[in-house]
C-alpha cells in the first residue's frame, strides 16, 4: 500500500523548487544581524541577484547538506566555526571556490590549504575565560588568570563549559589543552577543572550567557561571544589565559553541485573583501577579520596581545583524532555530575 499512495501526494507539489539563475541561496551560520548586513550589502552591489538567506547553526547546516548531497538546495555556506566546514570539505560536500587568498592572514590561507581551496577563513575568534564580576566580588573569589587557576578549589561549582561531544567550542578547548600540555596532562588538567564544573552544557555559547546573567561564576568559550555579552551591558570580564590559548576560524564554502556557481563565487570574493569584513562590528560581531587590510574593532580581542598557540587544524580537525580524543574525554573527564 505504501508505494501505491506515494504518488497521490504529488498533488501537493506546487510552488517551484528550482532556483532561477539570478537567485543565490545562502545559509548563514554567523549571528543573524551579521547575516542580514551581508545580504543587504551584497544585494546593493548586485541588484540583479536575489539573495535567499536563512540562518542555521553549523551542525544543522552540515546535517542538511549531508542529507541533500547530490541535489543541493544551497549554493553558499557562509560563517560558522571552521571544523564543520573542514568536515564538509573532507566528505566532498563542498567545492573549491578558486578565489585569490593572497591578501588574507596566515590562518585563513591555512584553511584553504588544508581543504584544497574548498573552504576559506573569514574570521578568527580566540578561546578565553569570562567571569561575572559581581558574583566573584560577592563571594570574594580572586579572578582567574590562567587555565591552571580553574582547577583551584576556590572555583568549586562556579565553572560552566560545554560538552565537547555536542559542542564545537568545547572541542576546540579540548584540542587546545592537548596542544598546550600534551594528551595525558591535558586529560588530567581537564578532569581537575571538571571537579569545579557545575554543568556541561550542550551548546557552546550557553556558558558565557549563563555567566553574563549570574547563573554561573565563570565560563569558558569564545571571546567574541563574551565581548558581545559585555557590550550588551552584562558585568562580564574577559581573560586571555596566561598559558596561551587556541582559536577557531570561521569559514565560507561553496556547496558541491551549487545551482548558481557564479553567484556563489561572487559571494565568496565579496565576503573576503577588506571593506566588507570591516563592517562586522556595526552589528556587534567582534571576531578578527581574515583580510589583512580590514580594520579591527577596538573592542575585538587583540590577537597580537593574546598568546595564541599554533593551532593544528589539519590534525585536530580530522575525524580520527576527534573520535579518539572524545573517547578519552568520556572516560577520563566525563560528565561527573549527573543531576537527579
Amino acid at each position: 500500500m505504501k508505494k501505491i499512495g506515494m504518488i497521490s501526494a504529488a498533488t501537493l507539489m506546487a510552488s517551484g523548487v528550482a532556483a532561477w539563475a539570478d537567485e543565490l541561496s545562502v545559509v548563514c551560520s554567523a549571528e543573524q544581524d551579521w547575516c542580514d548586513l551581508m545580504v543587504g550589502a551584497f544585494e546593493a552591489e548586485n541588484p540583479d541577484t536575489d539573495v535567499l538567506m536563512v540562518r542555521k547553526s553549523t551542525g544543522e547546516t552540515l546535517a542538511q547538506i549531508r542529507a541533500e548531497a547530490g541535489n543541493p538546495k544551497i549554493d553558499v555556506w557562509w560563517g560558522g566555526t571552521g571544523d564543520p566546514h573542514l568536515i564538509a570539505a573532507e566528505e566532498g560536500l563542498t567545492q573549491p571556490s578558486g578565489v585569490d587568498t593572497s591578501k588574507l592572514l596566515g590562518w585563513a590561507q591555512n584553511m584553504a590549504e588544508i581543504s584544497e581551496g574548498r573552504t576559506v577563513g573569514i574570521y578568527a575568534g580566540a578561546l578565553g575565560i569570562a567571569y561575572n564580576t559581581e558574583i566573584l566580588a560577592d563571594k570574594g573569589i580572586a579572578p582567574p588568570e590562567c587555565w591552571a587557576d580553574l582547577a583551584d578549589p576556590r572555583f568549586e561549582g562556579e565553572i560552566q563549559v560545554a560538552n565537547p561531544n555536542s559542542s564545537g567550542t568545547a572541542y576546540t578547548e579540548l584540542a587546545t589543552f592537548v596542544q598546550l600540555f600534551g594528551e595525558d596532562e591535558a586529560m588530567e588538567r581537564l578532569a581537575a577543572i571538571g571537579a569545579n564544573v557545575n554543568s556541561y552544557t550542550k551548546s557552546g555559547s550557553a556558558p558565557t550567557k549563563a555567566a553574563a546573567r549570574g547563573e554561573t561564576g565563570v565560563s569558558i568559550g569564545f571571546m567574541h561571544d563574551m565581548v558581545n555579552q559585555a557590550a550588551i551591558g552584562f558585568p562580564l570580564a574577559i581573560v586571555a589565559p596566561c598559558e596561551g590559548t587556541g582559536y577557531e576560524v570561521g569559514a565560507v564554502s561553496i556547496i558541491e553541485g551549487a545551482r548558481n556557481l557564479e553567484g556563489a563565487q561572487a559571494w565568496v570574493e565579496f565576503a573576503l573583501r577588506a571593506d566588507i569584513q570591516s563592517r562586522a562590528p556595526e552589528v556587534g560581531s567582534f571576531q578578527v577579520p581574515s583580510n589583512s587590510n580590514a580594520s579591527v574593532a577596538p573592542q575585538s580581542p587583540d590577537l597580537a596581545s593574546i598568546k595564541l598557540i599554533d593551532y593544528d587544524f589539519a590534525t585536530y580537525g580530522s575525524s580520527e583524532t576527534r573520535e579518539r580524543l572524545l573517547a578519552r574525554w568520556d572516560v577520563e573527564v566525563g560528565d561527573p555530575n549527573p543531576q537527579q
Partner: protein
Amino acid sequence: MKKTVLFWLILGLFGFVCLPWHMTDGGILDARWVTDGTASTGLFASIAGQWWLTPVGLTLLGALIIQLSVIDPVRRARLTLGTSVFGLVLLAVQGLVIVRAGPRILETLLTSETILAGQPGMGAGAAVCALALLFSSTISISQSGKGQGDAFVVNTIGLIVALVAIFVFFPVIHILVRAFEVDGGYALTEFFPRFFSSDIWGLGCLIRDRSCGVAINSLFLAVMTGAGTTLLGLSFALIFTRTDFRAKTVLRILTVLPIITPPFVIGLALILLFGRAGTVTEFFADLLGWEATRWLYGFWGIYFAQLLSFTPIAFLVLIGVVQGVSPSMEEASQTLDADRWQTFRFVSLPLMRPGLANAFLLGFIESLADFGNPLVLGSGYNVLSTDIYFAIVGAVADPAKAAILAIALLTLTLSAFMAQRIWLGKKSYATITGKADSGQNASLNPVLKWVCYGTALPWAALTVVVYSMIIFGSFVKLWGYNHSFTLDHYIRAFGIDFTTGRWTGVAWDSYFTTLTISSVAAPLTAVVGLSTAYLLVRQKFVGKDAFEFSTMLSFAIPGTVIGVSYIMAFNFPPIELTGTSIILIIVFVFRNMPVGVRGGIAAMSQLDKSLDEASITLGANSFTTVRRVILPLMGPAILAALTYSFVRAITSVSAVIFLVSAKHNMATSFIVGRVENGEFGLAIAYSAVLIITMLAAILILQLLVGTRRLRRSDRVQQA
C-alpha cells in the same frame, strides 16, 4: 457507484492527457508548461520517448473499458480493482526506479538515451492519475462486498493509509535503517549490543550514585509529566464543569496560554524567576539566608517547565470528556443513595477513563518528544530528544546512534500505547445517547472541590507570574539586568515606516509565512485527524490496531528525526518537496494529526452508536451521518484539533529547523536564532506578538465552531 468510478477514471485520463506529468518550475498555477515546447503531459511524454509512462495511461483506459463492458457487477469490480492496483504499482515503480540521474537499479538493462536522461519529480498529472487509480481501487473493493459495501469508508481508509505511508513511513524508514548500518552494508549484530547498552537503559541511579541511561531518564520524566499534567488538567476541567467558580473566563485563558507560547520562552522565564540569580530565588535567599542554588537545572527544572507547558493539552482533552459525562448516570447514582463522593468515584470518574487515558498518553509522548525545555534547563539530566538532536548535529555526527535512540524512544511510546489500550479494555464509555436528561451535572463534594481549587489555582497564579515576566521582559532594555523601559524590541521586530509605507521590521517576513502556513495546515490536520478517529471508533476493518498505532508514530518521533528524514526522503524524485512551503505544511499536518485523532477518539467514544444507527436506519449513508449527526456533537474535539494544530504549527521548532528555507522562514526558527545570539528582548517581543496573534485566532475559531449543545443548559446542580 459505477458513476463514481467512471468519474475518477475519466479524471485520471484527463490528468494523463492534459496535465504536466512532472513537476514544473513555476508551480502548479503557472501555465508556461503549455507553451514552452517540451513534451510535458503523460501522453505526450510517452510519445516523446518516456515509454515507461505509457502503461499507467493504459491501465486507466483498461479500467474504463472494463467498467463499460463487463456486466456482472462483482466481476467488474474485481477486474477494475486488479487493473487499478496494477496501474498504481507501475506508477510507483517507475517513479522510484527512474530518478533525476537516470535509473537507480537494473542499469545494465535500462540503457536507452531517454532513460539515462532521467526525470524530475512527479507533478500534477501524476498526482491526478494516482488519485484516480487509488479511488477506483477502493470503490471497487467496496463494490466487491468488503467494508460493508460503503464506498465512503473504504475511500477514506485508502486515502489515509496512503498518506500516512508516504508522509510518515516512507521518510522515517530512511533514517531508521541507519540503526542497522555497518561498514558497507546492514546487519543486526551491531544493533543489539548498541541498543541494549547501559548508556540507554542503565539503572545505575537507583543503586549507586551514578547516572541512569537516557531512556530511563526520559521514561521517568515522561511518566511524572503524564501523571502530573493529567491530574492538573482534570482539576481544571472539574472546576470548569462542576463548580460555580466565578472567574472561569480568566482561568480559561490561563489554561491556553502555555500551549501558545513559543519554545524556550517558558524555560527562559523560569531561569529569570527561579534560576540561581532569579528574582524569586534572590528574594528567598535574602529573606531566609539560604545559599542560592542551581536546583532548576536538571530533572526538577525540566519537570516544572513541562508541567507548565503540557497541562493545557490534558485540559483540552479532558474538558470535552468531563462535559460529556451524562447527568442521568449521576442522577441514577444519587437516587440509589450514593453520596457525591461515591457518585464521583464510582460513576463519573470511570466514565472519564478514555479522557484520562488519552490525556496521560499525550502528556507522556509530549514529554518524551519535548526538545526546548531539556535544552534550556537540562544541564546534566540527559534525555532522548536532546541526545538525538546532538547525535545528528553535534561535534561528532552519528546518525546510527540517533536512529538507535529514536528506536528506543519509539519503544517507550509503543509500550505506553499498549498499556493505555489494556487499561481502557473493551468497556463502553458512551454517555451521549440522545436520550433526554435533566441537564444538571452533579456538583463536586466539598473536599474534592477544595482539592481542585488547591491544585489548580496556585498553578494558575504561577502561570500569571510567568507571563507577566514575559510581557515585562519585552518592554525592558536588558531582561534580568537593565530594567529601563523601552519599545525598541517591538520597533526592531515590527516597525513600519509610515512615510514610505515599508514594513521595516525584521520579523514581518517570517511572521506572515508562519501565519499562512499554519492557517493552511490547521484545517487539513483537523480533517485528517478527525476522519482517522471516526474510522477507528466507528468502523471495523482488518489491521485496525496497527493502523491506530501508525497514526501515532509521527507524533512520537522527535522533531529532529522527522526533519532530517524529510530531507532525505523528499529532496529527490519521485517526490521532491524540499525548499517549498508544502513540505512545511505536510510536516505539520502529519506531526499534529495524532492530537486530532486522540481528541476525536475520546469525544467519539462517548457518542452512543445508536445515534449513527438511527441515522443509517432513516436512510442516510455514512457520509451524511458524519456530517449531520457526528460532526455537530464533536464541537469541542474539532475546536481542540484546529486550535492545537494551528498553535503547534506556529510554535514547533525541532522539525522545522531543517526544513525552513530562505523563502519560507518560520517564526520559531527566527526566534531560536535570536536566542542563540543572546537577544532575548527581541525574541520575547516577537513571542509576545505571536501569543497575542494566537489568542485572537483561538477566540475567532471558538466563535466559528461554536459550542455544542448537549442538553438544555450545562448547569451545575446546586448543592
